[in-house]
């Protein structure tokens, strides 16, 4: 067969985003009641750069006592200031936070890349601008809640406990904080233990914005700290983004309490390519679907379904496109795939690569060199798999694609829905009617038509089945933080 060699001898020279403009402290305390407070345990843990394994900063570890302190500060701020403030005033603070993020966008992008391993291109062009956009969007709603829910007397819930994951550290903080503040709630938020830095930088912005003390409290720690938030009796609402396993524990823990919850959990999205699709662009969508953010995306298109008549063609095009993906230093502006977020996650991914091979699937990886230090995984795809394979059933959360074929619409709908998850899906076809038929039958919270992994603050996001419940973004995202008459 004719081959095209895409391993060009014209290689990129290093093009590194500079880090000399960023301002990181050696040690971060807890942000409680508008002040930086030492943890009562006196304990700190390290956050490291996954691309170099070097320590970036020491981070305070919050225990029960610290969580209690933070919840008390949030309750006080809610009772005394935030719930009484005119909504238009609340909106001004949120606008101010949005603008400050924009002003310091470059610093945020670099720190996000250092702490999490994601390519600077994504942190700069996606994470940080979208985070600012979420604050702008919800700032606008703050004084218009009666128009969002007419005649239903929307009221805040109180104190929200929010726990965010490590894949989009700042963006997930924005998804959580912006609607909570716009609706008049106060917040105790915990970023993930491997990526706490941008949330702590946001605390600096919150101070700078003059937000009343205690309206937003940011405390750091691992699962134990998260559990203390979930179990605190004076929390009115839990908003969690993370694994389905932890989501189930949270739902158990809050059963029988008055706590409301939104859970945004795992996924194993079907990305479906029909023979009539624009195939070159579908390939671009497959790439965006699974290799965006090293595949550390709950809505990643990790199960690819290709109609049999175009299978060979799509695989050829996909492998060609994969050849131009640059894996390496996340700070390099040409990097497409950065570092795996942590050693633990790399072990999980490698475990699944082994499982895939042991199950008899054929593994394909691009021919690229990896840095010696740090945590890395080449862009990977598995062919010769079926719904019966574990790598098709379980969320890997890495740059690993499982490819299956199908023959008919009915067959692919059955297979796409044959999963405990239901967060997202993608459909590629040139026929509008086919697209809408598919979207009405797929059981997933977000379905993209002829695109993938596109986000906008006005668009609700959330899952079916074990991918969780509740919606973030848009009007739906407001409702998750309000008592609304008649529901």
């Amino acid at each position: 067969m004719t081959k095209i060699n895409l391993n060009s001898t014209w290689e990129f020279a290093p093009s590194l985003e500079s880090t000399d403009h960023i301002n990181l402290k050696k040690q971060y305390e807890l942000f409680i009641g508008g002040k930086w407070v030492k943890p009562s345990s006196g304990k700190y843990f390290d956050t490291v750069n996954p691309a170099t394994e070097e320590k970036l900063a020491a981070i305070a570890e919050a225990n029960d006592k610290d969580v209690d302190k933070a919840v008390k500060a949030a309750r006080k701020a809610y009772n005394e200031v935030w719930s009484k403030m005119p909504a238009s005033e609340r909106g001004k603070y949120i606008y101010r936070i949005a603008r400050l993020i924009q002003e310091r966008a470059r610093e945020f992008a670099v720190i996000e890349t250092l702490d999490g391993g994601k390519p600077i291109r994504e942190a700069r062009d996606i994470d940080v601008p979208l985070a600012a956009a979420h604050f702008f969007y919800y700032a606008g709603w703050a004084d218009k809640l009666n128009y969002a829910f007419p005649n239903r007397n929307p009221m805040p819930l109180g104190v929200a406990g929010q726990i965010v994951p490590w894949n989009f550290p700042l963006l997930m903080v924005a998804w959580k904080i912006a609607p909570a503040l716009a609706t008049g709630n106060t917040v105790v938020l915990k970023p993930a233990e491997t990526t706490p830095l941008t949330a702590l930088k946001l605390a600096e912005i919150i101070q700078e914005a003059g937000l009343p003390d205690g309206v937003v409290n940011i405390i750091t720690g691992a699962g134990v700290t998260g559990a203390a938030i979930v179990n605190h009796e004076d929390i009115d609402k839990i908003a969690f983004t993370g694994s389905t396993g932890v989501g189930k524990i949270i739902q158990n823990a809050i059963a029988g309490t008055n706590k409301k919850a939104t859970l945004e959990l795992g996924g194993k999205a079907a990305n479906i390519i029909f023979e009539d699709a624009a195939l070159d662009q579908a390939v671009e969508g497959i790439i965006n679907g699974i290799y965006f953010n090293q595949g550390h995306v709950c809505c990643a298109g990790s199960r690819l379904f290709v109609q049999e008549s175009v299978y060979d063609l799509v695989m050829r095009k996909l492998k060609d496109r994969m050849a131009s993906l640059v894996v390496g230093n996340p700070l390099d502006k040409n990097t497409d795939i950065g570092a795996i977020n942590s050693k633990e996650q790399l072990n999980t991914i490698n475990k699944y690569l082994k499982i895939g091979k042991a199950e008899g699937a054929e593994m394909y990886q691009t021919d690229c060199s990896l840095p010696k230090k740090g945590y890395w995984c080449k862009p990977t795809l598995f062919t010769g798999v079926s719904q019966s394979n574990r790598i098709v059933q379980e969320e890997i959360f890495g740059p690993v694609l499982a490819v299956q074929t199908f023959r008919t619409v009915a067959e692919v709908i059955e297979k796409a829905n044959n999963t405990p998850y239901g967060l997202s899906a993608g459909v590629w076809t040139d026929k509008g009617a086919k697209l809408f038929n598919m979207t009405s039958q797929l059981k997933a919270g977000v379905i993209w038509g002829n695109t993938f992994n596109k986000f906008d603050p006005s668009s609700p996001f959330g899952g079916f089945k074990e991918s969780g419940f509740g919606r973030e973004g848009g009007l739906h995202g407001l409702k998750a933080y309000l008592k609304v008459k008649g529901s």
Partner: protein
Amino acid sequence: MSNKKVILDYNATPVIDQVGVLDRIDRITSRSLKKDAKMHGLKLALSMIDLTTLEGADTDKKVIQLCNKAMHLHDAMPGLPTVAAVCVYPNFVETAKKTLKGTKIKVASVATAFPSGQSSREIKLLDTKLAVDNGADEVDMVISRGRFHEGDYSFVFDEIAAIKEACGKARLKVILETGELGTFDKVRRASDIAIYAGADFIKTSTGKISPAATLPVTSVMLEAIKDYYYKTGIQVGMKPAGGISNAKLALQYLLLVKETLGDAWLTNEWFRFGASSLANDVLMQIVKQTTGIYQSKDYFSKD
């Protein structure tokens, strides 16, 4: 090269999704070229330029001046490549050939009632013959866009095939005039027609219509070239023309070629820029890369 017969079904040309094409181009334009990689790209771009003059006011003396520029891009800096070709109207081919004698610079001639293509087959063949008889190494033809819009694809195909035959040894570049086609779907169909009818190169534009070349249109055309290569093993060249006036944009085109077709197309045998003012901007960047200092535009000759 295989002997497999490949037949084009005009109604089965691949569909193109505009949003996806733009997504792909976003990835290209966010690439960053520094140091050696940038220098390599700049020199490559310089060597791929078809230095062009296609004006009603063209004269022999103007064409001679342009040829001099082609041969002496910036003699103050030794070791630079020359441009690939000079592109003129058929009646100036002889002058250009004479002036460029002894160099490797090719002479390309537009033909077939350029730029509109509104004439008879007979006239178009004569126009082509004039260019070839005068010694043109390459012929840049235009397709019949009116017939294409009418859906008369066979006419367009046959016309290209006839011109190709009339070209003899000269290489044929087929101008689709993408700015008049309207959609990426049509760009892809026109690309396939031109390629299957025997084009050695497909080219975006005459330079007389806006928009001329763009990165998205070029991406669609490169994918057509690639699909054909996979089917037949036959290489077809690409020439974006018009609107590419600065080095940064030229480098983005080259990166698109690199990531779509690889090194085999990164030579002036298979990729060209149709441009009149690009060369000086590329030269200015090369001097800047070498000396660290931007020089005044007045240090670069204008012909």
